C-alpha cells in the first residue's frame, strides 16, 4: 500500500487512488515534448502543430551535420597559405525539411541556410541541397570557386549536375568544412 503526498493510502502506486496526486513526487514533471522529426517544432501530443506529422507514422528524416574537419583541412591546405584551422569546433545539425537548402557564406546581409561564413574557401553561393524526385536529397554545385568534393573522391563534382545523396555521404567544401548527410527512420 502506497501513501500519497496528501496522506491517503492507495492500492495504486503511480497516482493516488483517492485524490489522484502523484505518489512519491513533489517536484514538477519536466515538459513532455520532443522535436517533430519532420519540421523540428516541439510536439506535445500525437500530431505536430507545425506540419501535422503523425508521431505514430515512421518517416525518413534527413539532416546535415556540419563540422570543421581536420582531415579535410590537412588534405586541401598547403604550408604557404596562412590558414589556421578553427580552434573552436562547434558541430551544427540542420534538419533538411523541404525546398532548397543553400550552402555558402553570408553576403550583403543574406544568410544561407547552412551558413559557412568564416571558412575562407567557401563561395557565397557554394552549393545547394534539393529534395530529389524519389524522396531523397541531391547536391548541386552551381559553379563555386573552389569546387565541392564528396566522400574520398579527390575530384570535384560536375558543375550544375545534381548528385543524389545517401546516408553517410560527406560533402567537403572550403578549407575545412565537411557536411555529413544523415538519413534515419524515426517514429
Amino acid at each position, binding site marked *: 500500500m502506497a501513501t500519497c503526498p496528501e496522506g491517503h493510502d492507495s492500492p*495504486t502506486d*503511480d*497516482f*493516488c*487512488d*483517492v*485524490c*489522484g*496526486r*502523484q505518489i512519491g*513526487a513533489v*517536484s*514538477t*514533471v519536466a*515538459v513532455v515534448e520532443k522535436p517533430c522529426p*519532420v519540421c523540428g517544432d516541439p510536439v*506535445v*501530443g*500525437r*500530431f*505536430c*502543430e507545425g*506540419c*501535422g*506529422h*503523425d508521431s505514430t*507514422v515512421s518517416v525518413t528524416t534527413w539532416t546535415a551535420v556540419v563540422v570543421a574537419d581536420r582531415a579535410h583541412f590537412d588534405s586541401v591546405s598547403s604550408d604557404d597559405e596562412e590558414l589556421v584551422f578553427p580552434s573552436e569546433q562547434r558541430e551544427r545539425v540542420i534538419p533538411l525539411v523541404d525546398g532548397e537548402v543553400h550552402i555558402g557564406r553570408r553576403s550583403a546581409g543574406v544568410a544561407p541556410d547552412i551558413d559557412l561564413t568564416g571558412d575562407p574557401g567557401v563561395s557565397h553561393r557554394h552549393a545547394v541541397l534539393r529534395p530529389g524526385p524519389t524522396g531523397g536529397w541531391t547536391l548541386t554545385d552551381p559553379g563555386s570557386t573552389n569546387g565541392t568534393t564528396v566522400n574520398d573522391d579527390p575530384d570535384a563534382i560536375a558543375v550544375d549536375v545534381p548528385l543524389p545523396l545517401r546516408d553517410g555521404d560527406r560533402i567537403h567544401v572550403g578549407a575545412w568544412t565537411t557536411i555529413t548527410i544523415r538519413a534515419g527512420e524515426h517514429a
Partner: protein
Amino acid sequence: MSFQVDVYQNEYLPAGAREVNAIVTVTATGLTTSPTAAAEVIIIDCSGSMEYPRAKLVAAKQATCAAIDALRDGVAFAVVAGTDTASTVYPSAGLVAASQRTRREAKAAVQRLKAGGGTAIGSWLSLASTLFRGHEDALRHAILLTDGRNEHEKPAHLERVLAECEGRFVCDCRGVGTDWEVAELRKVSTALLGTVDIVADPAGLEADFQAMTADAMGKAVADVRLRLWTPQGAKVKFVKQVAPSMVDLTGKRADTGPRHGDYPTGSWGSESRDYHVCVEVNPASVGDVMLAGRVSLLVGDEVLGQGMVKAVWTDDEALSTRISKEVAHYTGQAELAGVIQEGMRARRDGDLDRATAKLGRAVKLAAESGNGDTAALLAKVVDVVDPVTGTVRLKAKVTEADAMTLDTRSTKTSRVRRG
C-alpha cells in the same frame, strides 16, 4: 487479446482551472481468429406499408436472405416479422444453429412473408430480447428494418422496452424509404449501441444487410466496458464516443465503486474507436501533477488496456493555452452533428433564418475539419456560397431522401487528420 489505449490531451492547465479534456483512442489488438459464439436476430418490418411500393417488401426479403447467407455455420439465429405485434418467422421457437439446412428453411420461410398490420417496434425488440435468453455468453446482435413510424404503441412503451434491452444485445437499425422517423430510430440504435442508417432505395438493402451481418460476424468480444476512475471530488462532465460516430455515453454510466463507473461499448472486432472524456477536478497548486482520470477497458473482470488522463497546473501560458489538436477536432465534430440536427429541425418547422444559420455553420465546420462525406450531404440541402464563412442558401427543392440522409448521418464523424 488486448486494447491499446492512447491518450491525447494538453495536460497543462492554468492555475485554478478545473476542466480536463482528453481524446482516448482505443484499438483492439491481438484478436483470436477462432470464431466466437454468436447469436443473431433479424427483425423485418411486415407492416402493410411495406407493400407500397411493393419493391420494399421484395427487397427486404432479398436482404434478409443475404444476411442469412452471411451467417457463419453454428451461429444461433432467428428471423422475426414485425407488425403491431411480433412473431417468429423461423425457427418456430428460440434460436437455431446456422447450417446449410436451417439457412435454406429460413430463406423459404422469409419468402412466404406477407405484409399487413401496423408498426410496434417495442414489441419486436421485446421478442428479440426473449430469443437471446440463454445466449448471454455469445455475441448478441440484431438487425432491425422498418419503413414507418412507431404508430401502434405508446412512446412510453418503447422507452420501457429499450431500458430493458440495454446491454442485452447490440442492434443496428435501418430505415427503408422516407416515411420513418430519424429521431425515433436513432433513439433505438443509441440505446442498443448500434448504428442507424437510411436505405432510401430498397435496391440498396441487400448489400447493406450483407455488410452489417459480415461486420457482426467480425466481432470477437462482447460486452466490453470502459471504466473511468476519477479522483475524489471530481465530476465527469461527459464521456462520448466520437469516432467512428458520435454517441454520448454519459448517461449510460453504471457506478462500480466510490470513484469509478463503467460505460458500455458493446462488441469489438479488429477496430479502433475514439472517446472524448471531460472531467472537472479540484485544482491543485501550480507545479502539481494529478491523475484526472484512469481509463480501463474491461471484459468481465479482466482489465485489457489502460490509459491515463493527467492534469498539470502551470504558470507558463505558452503551455496552458495550447489546444490539443485531437480535442479541438472532435469538439468541432460534436458541434457539427448538433447544428445539422438543429438546422434540419428548424427547416422542418419552417424557421428558415435559423435553418440557414445552423446549416451554414455546419458547412463551415465540415469544410474546416475535412469531413467530406458530410459536406457532400449538406450540399444536397443547401447551395454553398462560401464554405469558409459558412454562407449558404437553402435549396428550394430538396428530396425527402436527401434531407433524411443528412439528418441520419449527421453523427458520422471524420477521424482526426493524420499528418
